[in-house]
């Protein structure tokens, strides 16, 4: 079934967040409406950093944290 627009928005938000703060490579991540392995790995990395339950899924807690106001400096990775 096609993704609801709310799910699509969440996926876009997550991609943008993970690209900016966790070095997720650019490119289409959820072509079939499912997060790719690369996206899942980055979600896990973020969940580990924030002491969330590490599922690799965009659960409510993870999305809520992604929407919080924050500093623009990446949490991990080489600083460019």
């Amino acid at each position, binding site marked *: 079934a096609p993704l609801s627009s709310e799910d699509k928005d969440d996926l876009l938000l997550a991609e943008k967040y993970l690209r900016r703060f966790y070095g997720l490579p650019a490119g289409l991540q959820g072509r079939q409406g499912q997060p790719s392995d690369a996206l899942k790995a980055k979600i896990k990395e973020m969940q580990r950093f924030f002491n969330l339950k590490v599922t690799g899924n965009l659960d*409510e807690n993870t999305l809520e*944290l992604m929407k919080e*106001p*924050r*500093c623009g*400096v990446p949490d991990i990775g*080489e600083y460019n």
Partner: protein
Amino acid sequence: HFPRHLKWPNTDVTFRIVNYTPDLKKSDVDRAIRNALNAWSDVTPLTFKKLYKGNADIMISFGSKEHGDYNPFDGPNGLLAHAYPPGEGIGGDTHFDEDEDWTKDSSAYNLFIVAAHELGHALGMSHSTDPGALMYPVYSYSTGYPLAEDDIEGIQALYGPNPNSRKVKPRPDAPTKCDPMLSFDAATELRGETVIFKDRFYWRLHPQMPEPEQTLIKSTWPSIPNKVDAAYENPEKDLVIIFSGIRMWALNGYNLVDGYPKYIHKLGLPKTIRKVDAAVHIGDTGKTLLFTDEEYWSYDEASGTMDTGYPRSIEDDFPGMSDEVDAAVYHYGYLYFFHDHVQYEYSYTSKKVIRIMRTNAILNC
């Protein structure tokens, strides 16, 4: 720290405020930046000299969207600011998103708090995973000295301690939910959620959220003290009462109710009582039990008076329980008492302890 542990080679660092936000008076911006720098210089040998022209190590500016570094801001909320680690050129530069509403209090984004965090980056600090640390990447409001132990250890690992050490009182680290020795300060229901207070933080447990959420008390309720002694919900009045020392506050949902704080003695407690250890409302009887040291009181919510014959001994009336209580909640005929790292499940009808668990079992540990 950033990779390769980037830091300034000298301890005398210069800064320049390139432009100002119209949200605040110039003097307020100057003060926020100076105080933010002082937070770091208090614990290190670093000194900061202000320049008014030319190139400084740390160039501070306000800008919106794309503002000259190909690292654009995003309009209101979301990204608040960013800073570059120590280095030549853009290194150390600190940028604030002008699309945010900058304040010197808790009404919007507090410039001092954000500046202290960003200047931490400008000195070589990366993000902390400790939600109680200043270098945690998510904004939260707090008062008092901004650095936590984690921040101080981090900056001193780069520059060493301040040789003329002024006494600073670091913020304690955030409590960890699965610490086996964890105790609670207070617990209450709030419209179907459970809220647990510990130090400067509270955990929010929602039936549809798999993991508890930890937040600074000041971040949600800036006017409530950092230490909560007791709390209870009166669902009939849709109020949560929060006790700290001899004062109490009321919440309707997450909003503070006007007319508070009030003195706890308004409830009928004698003036000799200086704090309430725990409070719980028993919906079936309409009574609220208030625990103080080894005794408890019964408050009748309907009449707004303290019941006669109290205080009574906790040990006598709740057999099997410890004689003091840190926090208590009531669910479907069962009272859950918390004392130190132990939780007692007490049947209100059969008047006995049914189960003993770890305090943090409620936090899925």
